[in-house]
């Protein structure tokens, strides 16, 4: 088995995870024995990723910076089979959710997870959540520095943080190391963007107070350039200001974005800078040796340049139209010549987005071992990524993915839909998401048509909490409940691209479930009629505005 090219736990990390499992085992025992009330227990189980959903407990497993070894993925499959119904759901936060867990089994499932250096800590609750990153990290052509080094540093600092384990509300951090942001850093509580200044130094732009949910907001830049070794000092200062002043009187106003909005970015900056003036001289300042020790573990795999034009690839391209389309949509350039980054689509036509069975997870692990240095990534678009594939291996990878049902050439296309679990699973949801995604995906199944329509991001949430990121979909769909009826509100023009981050605008009155496909079809037709050369759906929308789309969907007033 190949060595991993990302952070490996040492005995300290392992001890902590094991001790946390045993602490949780005792908490579960006390709950079942009646020593803890549900009110007391709920925050405790949530900070270990355990929710009570409609039909069962759901365990949300952290996949830090979306990076998995094939060995870890096999273990996830094993846990899904042993303690769940043999499948899992990859989420927009690069986590894996198992939907049918028993409370009494949860400590054993977590112990099994600990065998492969994984955990479910802080995947829920009012704490610093699992830190997310660009899913192309360490392989992307445009990358300045691997953001996962910093994610790991933040992961350790935030794990069981004694001061910040009872925050006003949840806290999400994302880090990108590329100018082309694939981590949506402007819509996180804190977004960090590595960039190189005029002096040639690399540091962070610190963006605070973004987020989706009930009150979507684009984050504000609190600091344009933060020296890397002061990252934790600045984060601790920001979290301290939030812990002190964040609202606790109203659940819906408790996120840091509301604090930033209410006191203003200027005042927020003042408060954070005042605190940072003290923390930057503390033990939080990172020693170069400490950074190096972690950075070394993210050293890229020793890939040698290979040929870029491979006769077998060219031949298959001519022979197999689906493969040719797949090369266009699911294969991205790699920084090493003759290599590529391959996205396995977890969105086959008509399937629940982001779901994978244990058999499929094992199949993906096989492919990673054979062709991608044993490494897999989870993208926030709910797909799996092979970061290091030789171009000459693409036909074999494609065929292997075909056998798993993950070779759909639809990445970034209209059927690459992001959807939350919705009312079929979730205790918070108002409407179903998955069946809506399935009907759209079935309707637009033709690959030729999808590629003609081009890049189009549909994002579906089953309630206002926006786990399906509907605010930033080119087409956003939000399920609402009106007197017991599921209705869907459509918005247009959302975007997470760094320079263009925008929140979608609601198109008109919410429509019934069986009208959603028709409406999406009308939106697409409007675009196809109006598009100029090279324009994507969202570009056309920006140019011509909402009116033509509105008329097509709702008819002339």
């Amino acid at each position, binding site marked *: 088995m190949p060595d991993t090219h990302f952070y490996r736990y040492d005995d300290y990390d392992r001890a902590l995870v094991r001790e946390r499992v045993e602490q949780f085992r005792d908490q579960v025992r006390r709950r079942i024995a009646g020593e803890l009330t549900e009110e007391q227990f709920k925050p405790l189980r949530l900070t270990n990723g355990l929710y009570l959903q409609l*039909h069962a407990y759901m365990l949300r497993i952290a996949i830090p910076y979306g990076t998995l070894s094939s060995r870890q993925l096999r273990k996830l499959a094993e846990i899904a089979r042993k303690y769940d119904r043999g499948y899992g759901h990859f989420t927009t936060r690069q986590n894996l959710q198992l939907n049918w867990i028993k409370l*009494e089994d949860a400590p054993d499932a977590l112990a099994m997870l600990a065998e492969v250096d994984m955990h479910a800590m802080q995947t829920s609750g009012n704490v610093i959540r699992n830190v997310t990153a660009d899913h192309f990290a360490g392989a992307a052509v445009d990358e300045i520095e691997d953001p996962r080094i910093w994610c790991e540093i933040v992961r350790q600092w935030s794990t069981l943080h004694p001061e910040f384990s009872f925050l006003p509300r949840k806290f999400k951090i994302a880090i990108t190391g590329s100018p082309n942001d694939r981590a949506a850093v402007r819509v996180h509580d804190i977004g960090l963007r590595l960039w190189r200044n005029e002096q040639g130094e690399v540091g962070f732009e610190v963006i605070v107070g973004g987020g989706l949910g009930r009150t979507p907001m684009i984050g504000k830049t609190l600091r344009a350039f933060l020296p890397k070794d002061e990252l934790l000092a600045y984060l601790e200062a920001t979290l301290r200001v939030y812990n002190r002043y964040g609202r606790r009187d109203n659940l819906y106003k408790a996120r840091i974005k509301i604090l930033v909005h209410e006191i203003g970015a200027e005042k927020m900056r003042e408060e954070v800078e005042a605190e940072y003036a003290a923390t930057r001289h503390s033990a939080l300042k990172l020693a170069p040796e400490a950074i190096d020790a972690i950075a070394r573990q993210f050293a890229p795999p020793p890939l040698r340049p290979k040929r870029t034009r491979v006769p077998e690839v060219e031949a298959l391209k001519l022979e197999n139209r689906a493969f040719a389309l797949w090369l266009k949509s699911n294969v991205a350039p790699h920084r090493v010549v003759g290599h590529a980054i391959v996205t396995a689509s977890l969105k086959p036509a008509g399937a629940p987005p982001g*779901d994978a069975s244990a*058999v499929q997870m094992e199949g993906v692990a096989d492919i990673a071992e054979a062709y991608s240095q044993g490494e897999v990534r989870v993208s926030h678009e709910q797909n799996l990524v092979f970061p290091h594939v030789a171009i000459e291996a693409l036909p074999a990878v494609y065929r292997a993915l075909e056998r798993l*049902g993950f070779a759909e050439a639809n990445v970034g296309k209209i059927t690459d839909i992001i959807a939350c679990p919705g009312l079929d699973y979730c205790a918070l949801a108002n409407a179903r998401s998955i069946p809506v995604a399935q009907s759209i995906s079935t309707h637009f199944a033709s690959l030729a048509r999808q590629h003609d329509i081009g890049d189009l991001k549909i994002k579906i949430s089953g309630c206002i909490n926006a786990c399906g990121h509907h605010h930033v979909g080119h087409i956003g769909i939000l399920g609402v409940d009106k007197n017991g009826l599921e209705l869907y509100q459509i918005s247009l023009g959302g975007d997470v691209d760094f320079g263009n981050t925008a929140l979608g605008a609601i198109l008109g009155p919410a429509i019934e479930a069986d009208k959603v496909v028709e409406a999406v079809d009308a939106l697409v037709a409007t675009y196809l009629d109006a598009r100029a050369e090279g324009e994507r759906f969202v570009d056309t929308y920006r140019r011509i505005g909402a009116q033509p789309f509105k008329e097509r969907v709702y008819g002339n007033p």
Partner: protein
Amino acid sequence: MAKNLSGDLQVASANRLVDGLVVYLDDAGRWTPRLDRAALARDRSESAILLERARAEAFTVVDPFLVAVTESDDGTIEPLSLREKIRAAGLTFDAIASEAIRYA
């Protein structure tokens, strides 16, 4: 088929503590996964009593609550809301089943 849609009919439901399973309170004060065995309250005062009983039996379940149901002529009980229909009947689509070897 005639249904009582008044919204007055209620059963008590909860999730079982140890595994989260959806359960209903039966006439004997036991929690059962079978909706057809659920104790049925037919008016407001019966509902209040039912909820009281459910809370008194809550040691093995989480946060009992009332569910509005309909009753057809043949006595079949069905929840009114979609959410409760889904809790009672399960997912509205086919989840992937690992050992179905759909992709093997």
